[in-house]
């Protein structure tokens, strides 16, 4: 690795650059059936990497080696064509539209395949689809667009809003992250890539498509290919987007007066006289003043959440310019992108000295260059750079504060204009605007080179590639502190007391995150040849990578991959893939794993007896099936096979000795036993599916996949070892999960007159069940993990509200759960029937937090250059737990926590039947506030995930303007949501609600090509 490989690659390149000439000059023109010339048709000399594309007038010129040469024409949406050169020197070629996507080429692991003959479960998404969604983070554009993909957005914070992606649901409790491969090289994430740089995205789902990744392939793979240049005149693409982000859902708090009335009830319900604790709020005069709002300083009514969160929204802008083009020898794609996403918090404008606002800013640069060195060699390079800046207080806990800040305790400002505060609550606005800031910068650059050698002189169809990639990520966070005077105005005495003291703005320090260097090397030997009706392809790959993260021990991975494909007459298809790779995570004897898979396909419509049906009803029907083994080497930590001893000087593992300055010898502690036999997690995956195109012109296309998976040997510590042995269990390959599901994509396209319309439906259902998690054998079955999905919620099963004291007396005692139980409180199920409600009565409630069902329906219509598409996307069969300020009234007893609209439906003796909420309690540890089925909500939602209306200027006008294409569009994301959860976003994953809210984006954009 390192520099040597570069030197060798370079010498290879120099030694051959001056050589290689072709002999015959050919020219020609390519047109469609209507006689219009086609621009950008790729023309390649068969079995070589050389070629060209047609220019704006559909013309091309190319040198070929001899008269036996064949040229291959490919163009998206058209049937590819092969022409023998023979004695012709000028070609007039007509290409026919395929009107389907089957001739498209799909990017697969270490290569490409023709969509029609793919036998694995692979879905793809193109650049144009990615760009329809105006979200800043490209991971969120995938939602609803790919069958089998489940996404959950964690947070709306600019720069930290990655969606968590699960391919076909969750099958392990250890690592569920799919492998991300960008241009053939593993990357930790693709969230910060400029979507304008992406050509296509392939999601590999079944074992046959991921087995070559072996030990890393169990959770599926996302392959990203970036755009590359094609020879022709320079093409410039400019796009600009201006958007507005707004929180999707905001909790609705009650006014001071309403909250105090309810607080009084809550105190009384807990047997406490409210005036003995908070004498000032509950006097008749005070309540009257809160009701009328007559004295907003002494009796304030401040909704801190809406004061702090910009209701009008925050802007977002994104620009990209890219240029592509080239000659036969050099092709290029160069892209420069900029994104700025402003934050939703108010108050930054008060600060003149520095910028405390939350925002995210990103520059992306990419230069992909392909050099044709000689007849046998091409060199593809990419140089990418990315610079990210995250400004402002990065603590989502702020939102916890806003949720908990009571509207009646302090005004924002005192009458004298100073910030108000109280001994137990600081002023959120002052805290944000005058509380210092932080600036986190992350930079990344990546250099990648691939040298392709055409070895057809040795064996026809043989290619040898070398890829080297170097990637460096580094950055730092600078923090600045600041504090401002805040005062409490005593309403009785009118005396100001200082609460926080001014501290000057000062630089606190800079912390450097661990720089991460990733180096990868890959060699690929590929063979593809057609013998009459036999299509044979083979790929052999060696790869290794090394990741150096700060001072940590390097992460190293190496392996081989092989794939053989065979097709007979495009009818009978078979593929065998093998991965053989190793991970440093395991001991020497258990490092390398062998991961085989196979898949077969049968294209029924290629059979002669289908001929009549094919032309009219079923143009295409393919059945396919696959089975294979893949692995996952990721554990909870590194080197889990080794015994663990921890060393520490702190009090927990050391013990000080001495008098005035006690010291320690240091402490060594045995943490767990070793298990040299520890090895990777395995997934045995099965998949069957079919792809059909029905009716004339493929009006209807249907893809269905049914899949299942046996996940075994999940890494975990034994849970049935007695702790009296004094030692923790080693990590063992114990856990087992079975998951299964179905996914489908159905698309209908049609054209009536000038109107083209389409309707796409995508649905994924994937569930899992834990088969084995080493539950202690004596554990009651309802508490065991086995038999339930991963992440199953557990808590008390609510049987209803207690309607009267007699019911409470007769029911199993709930006193031990905390607080006074009164009519209107939640009645829990006594699962173990011992007459008292304890932890042992907790059962599985609801489901897990990961949706089992995701779906989308996308109608689209285009007419006269207008194009409208709306994606309705939904998810469901999951649960969301609410707790803390998001769930309960007065989440922190008397001093913090609020009441929202939801709690207005509290139980009263007068209205026992229609109550929608239990009795109110000030006690934050009250029985009602334990996790229970009442507070667990169904996570189902349906939302307008994305919508776009675009207008493409007619080609004639474009030509007059001197541009090739001009498109304007308005689009949006998360435009409307239907859900039972109306105070938070239904994708919220944090039960307490202290998370930066998810956003809707309203966007206008322009895209120009010239």
């Amino acid at each position: 690795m390192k520099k040597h490989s570069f030197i060798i690659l370079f010498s290879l390149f120099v030694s051959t650059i001056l050589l290689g000439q072709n002999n015959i000059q050919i020219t020609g023109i390519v047109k469609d059936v209507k006689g219009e010339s086609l621009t950008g048709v790729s023309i390649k000399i068969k079995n070589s990497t050389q070629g060209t594309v047609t220019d704006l007038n559909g013309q091309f010129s190319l040198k070929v080696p001899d008269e036996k040469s064949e040229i291959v024409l490919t163009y998206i949406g058209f049937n590819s064509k092969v022409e023998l050169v023979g004695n012709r020197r000028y070609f007039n070629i007509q290409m026919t539209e395929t009107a389907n996507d089957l001739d498209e080429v799909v990017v697969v692991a270490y290569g490409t395949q023709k969509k029609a003959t793919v036998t694995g479960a692979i879905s793809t998404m193109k650049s144009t689809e990615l760009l329809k969604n105006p979200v800043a983070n490209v991971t969120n554009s995938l939602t609803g667009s790919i069958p089998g993909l489940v996404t959950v957005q964690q947070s709306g914070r600019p720069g930290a809003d990655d969606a968590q992606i699960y391919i076909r649901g969750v099958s392990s409790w250890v690592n569920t992250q799919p492998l991300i491969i960008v241009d053939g090289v593993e990357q930790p994430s693709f969230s910060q890539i400029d979507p304008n740089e992406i050509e296509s995205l392939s999601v590999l789902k079944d074992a046959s498509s991921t087995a070559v990744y072996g030990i890393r392939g169990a959770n599926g793979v996302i392959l990203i290919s970036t755009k590359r240049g094609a020879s022709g005149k320079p093409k410039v693409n400019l796009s600009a987007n201006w958007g507005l982000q707004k929180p999707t859902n905001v909790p609705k708090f009650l006014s001071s007066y309403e909250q105090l009335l309810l607080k009084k009830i809550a105190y009384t319900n807990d047997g406490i006289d409210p005036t003995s604790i908070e004498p000032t709020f509950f006097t008749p005069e005070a309540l009257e003043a809160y009701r009328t709002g007559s004295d907003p300083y002494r009796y304030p009514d401040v909704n801190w959440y809406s004061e702090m969160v910009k209701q009008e929204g925050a802007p977002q802008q994104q620009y990209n310019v890219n240029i592509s083009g080239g000659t036969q020898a050099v092709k290029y794609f160069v892209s420069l992108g900029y994104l700025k996403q402003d934050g939703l918090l108010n108050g930054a404008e008060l600060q003149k000295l520095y910028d405390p606002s939350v925002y995210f800013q990103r520059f992306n640069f990419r230069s992909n260059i392909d050099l044709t060195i000689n007849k046998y060699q091409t060199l593809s390079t990419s140089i990418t750079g990315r610079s990210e800046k995250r400004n402002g207080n990065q603590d989502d806990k702020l939102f916890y504060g806003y949720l908990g800040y009571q509207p009646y305790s302090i005004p924002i400002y005192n009458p004298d204009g100073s910030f108000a505060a109280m001994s137990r609550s600081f002023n959120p606005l002052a805290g944000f605007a005058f509380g210092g800031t932080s600036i986190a910068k992350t930079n990344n650059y990546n250099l990648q080179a691939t040298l392709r050698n055409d070895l057809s002189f040795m064996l026809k169809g043989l290619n040898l590639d070398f890829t080297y990639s170097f990637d460096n990520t580094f950055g730092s966070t600078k923090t600045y502190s600041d504090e401002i005077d805040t005062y409490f105005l005593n309403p009785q005495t009118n005396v100001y007391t200082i609460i926080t003291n001014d501290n000057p703005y000062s630089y606190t320090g800079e912390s450097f995150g661990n720089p991460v260097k990733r180096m990868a090397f890959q060699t690929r030997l590929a063979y593809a040849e057609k013998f009459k009706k036999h299509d044979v392809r083979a790929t052999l790959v060696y790869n290794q990578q090394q990741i150096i993260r700060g001072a940590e021990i390097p992460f190293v991975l190496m392996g081989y991959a092989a794939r053989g494909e065979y097709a007979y007459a495009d009818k009978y298809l078979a593929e065998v893939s093998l991965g053989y790779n190793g991970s440093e995570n395991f001991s020497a004897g258990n490092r390398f794993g062998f991961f085989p898979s196979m898949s077969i396909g049968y294209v029924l419509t290629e059979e002669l007896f289908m001929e009549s049906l094919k032309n009219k009803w079923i143009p295409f029907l393919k059945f396919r099936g696959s089975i294979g083994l893949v692995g996952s080497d990721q554990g909870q930590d590194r080197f889990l096979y080794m015994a663990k001893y921890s060393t520490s000087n702190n009090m927990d593992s050391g013990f000080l000795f001495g008098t005035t300055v006690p010291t320690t010898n240091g402490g060594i502690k045995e943490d767990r036993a070793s298990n040299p036999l520890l090895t990777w997690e395995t997934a045995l995956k099965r998949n069957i599916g079919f792809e059909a195109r029905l009716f004339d012109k493929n009006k209807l296309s249907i893809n269905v996949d049914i899949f299942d998976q046996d996940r075994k040997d999940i890494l975990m510590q034994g849970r049935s070892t007695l702790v009296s042995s004094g030692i923790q269990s080693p990590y063992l390959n114990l856990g087992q999960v079975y998951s299964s599901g179905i996914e489908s994509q159905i698309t209908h396209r049609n054209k009536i007159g000038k109107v083209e319309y389409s309707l796409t439906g995508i649905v994924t259902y994937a569930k899992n069940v834990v088969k084995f998690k080493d539950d202690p054998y004596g554990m009651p079955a309802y508490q065991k993990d086995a038999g339930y999905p991963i992440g199953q919620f557990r808590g008390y099963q609510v049987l209803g509200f207690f309607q009267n004291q007699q019911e409470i007396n007769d029911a199993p005692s709930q006193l031990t759960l905390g607080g006074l139980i009164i009519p209107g409180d939640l009645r829990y199920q006594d699962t173990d029937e011992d007459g008292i409600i304890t932890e042992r009565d907790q059962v599985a409630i609801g489901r897990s937090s990961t949706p089992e069902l995701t779906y989308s329906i996308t109608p689209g219509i285009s007419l006269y250059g207008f194009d409208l598409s709306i994606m309705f996307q939904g998810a469901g069969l999951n649960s969301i737990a609410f707790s803390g300020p998001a769930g309960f009234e007065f989440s922190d007893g008397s001093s913090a926590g609020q009441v929202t609209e939801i709690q207005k439906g509290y139980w009263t003796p007068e209205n026992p039947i229609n109550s929608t909420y239990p009795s109110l309690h000030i006690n934050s540890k009250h029985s009602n506030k334990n996790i229970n089925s009442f507070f667990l909500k169904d996570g189902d939602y349906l939302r307008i995930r994305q919508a776009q209306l675009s207008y493409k200027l007619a080609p004639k006008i474009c030509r007059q303007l001197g541009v090739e294409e001009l498109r304007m569009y308005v689009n949006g994301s998360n435009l409307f949501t239907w859900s039972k959860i109306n105070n938070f976003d239904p994708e919220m994953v944090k039960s307490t609600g202290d998370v930066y809210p998810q956003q809707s984006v309203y966007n206008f954009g322009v895209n120009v090509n010239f």
Partner: protein
Amino acid sequence: MKTIKYTIIALSIMLVFTRCELFDPAMLNQQPPMDITEEKIFSDYNLFKQYSDQAYSYIPGHLARMWSVMVPNFGDEMRTMTGGYPFNTGGWNGSNALVAPEIATIWTNSYAGIRKCNQILERIDQVPIPTTALKNRHIGEALFIRAFLYHELTKRWGDVPYIDYTQNPQVDDIDIARTPYDTIVARQVADLDRISAENLLLVDLPDQDNGRASIGAARALKSRILLYAARPLHNPTNDIKKWEAAANAAFEVINMNKYALYSDYKNLFFQTTCSEIIMNRPRKSFNSEGGHNDFLTSSGGKSLWARFFASEGFGGWQGLAVTQNCVDRFEDANGFPLADSLLSRSVDPTKAYNSKDPYTNRDPRFKASILYNGRTFANRTLDYTIPYPGQAGVNGADRGVKLVNLFSYNLAKYWPESMAGRWSGTSTYLNYIFFRYGEILLNYAEAQNEVGGPESSVAGGPSVRQVLTELRARVGQPEIPVQISGDKNTMRERIWNEFAVELCFEEHWWYDVLSWKAGERFFNTMIYRTDVYKKITGSNVTLIYNTKIPFEQAVFKPYMHLYPIPDNEIFKSKNLINNPGW
């Protein structure tokens, strides 16, 4: 053309195969550099001594080990900010997460420490230890810590599996039934006697070894173990021989003539070493080290331990409060309990308890241990008052607005006055005291009183009454009036109270009450709090104390004298049978 072809082939082959790093599986031999193994530990003294010293940390010796609750919160001494603690409501059991630090963690940690001691005792001969004295010390420490950890287990659970060898869970049958309590006591006493007999530990520790076990600590532990063994919970037949053994064990410590009461009771807890401390867990000074600061995460050099329990009047968080039940146990200045105030007034009315002015004329240890209304602390007069019903006004600064403030009492014992009101600075130490001479005197008094009554003594030793008088004289409290301590039974009452007062908040009372089998009497009770009303009549301000306001009905059932073995451990075992009632 051929040249190109061959160049490509040759260079490709070179590239791929001459790079030895490529294709070499040895590349995956990545390992942490500090690769400690059991073999290395027992063959390298430098590693061994670190391994051995760490065993001390399994002994619960950390007031803040349960974060927001302390042991005094279990019984009737204190209450927490949050309330509803399962030990108070009777809601604890072997799977409750809130009590796990006292149940599951103690079970797990004790056995982890016991394993380490067993390993050390089994393999010490293989360790190249420089001197015999050091080797003895390591043996002595392992014996001492093992006995201590078994005491931590037995005082909670009674019978527990006694394991004195290193188990290999992958090979051995580790599902061991519980060993009878008395058998464990015999093993503990034998180990501790061996320490004394073979002089495995030192009598006088050099300064740098403060914190280690000594002969005195081994004897103090033996005294505690035998006292617990003699108490009603594990001595249902009231076998007097057990009491004799306990009295003798306490006298063994007294008779060393090494330890003496420290004159300044209030500051005893801030001494690094002193005549009274038999064994402690040393801390670095307040703000610079985990120690008590890690009660809550220490940040910016602030000592949050004090801040956690300090009242809002000091800018604290009001995390803990002292109950009226605890306050009521402090006698008046005549030495009478509050219930006997009539009798006390007949002795000396000027020193008797007055319910209208409840904080004067009290045992000096009250002021040393508790903050209350009107008391001056850190140059501030504490204000726990609330407005008289119907009168306007705001709550006193120390009363604040949190529920726990309803008690109107805070902790003073672990809060050095010099630190009050500021949360940084390195002014003092707060070492955790495992054994102090005061406890030994009480151990002696309790055991000997059961053997022969208030005036009896072991051969050559002081009488029960004498040691109690000595203990009380240190703070200026008069001796226990004979009127209320004339016989074994009345004296037992006073001795129990003396345990409660002298050792309040020191993690004794809860376990003492359990071992006396008196949980229903003390803990199945109403917990009271106090309101101090500030009544304004014209220019006169009068304070009205209501010290009998019910706060919560605490629940304690007879079976709770022994803890439940953690459910999860029971689930794993075929041989472990839980204590009855759980």
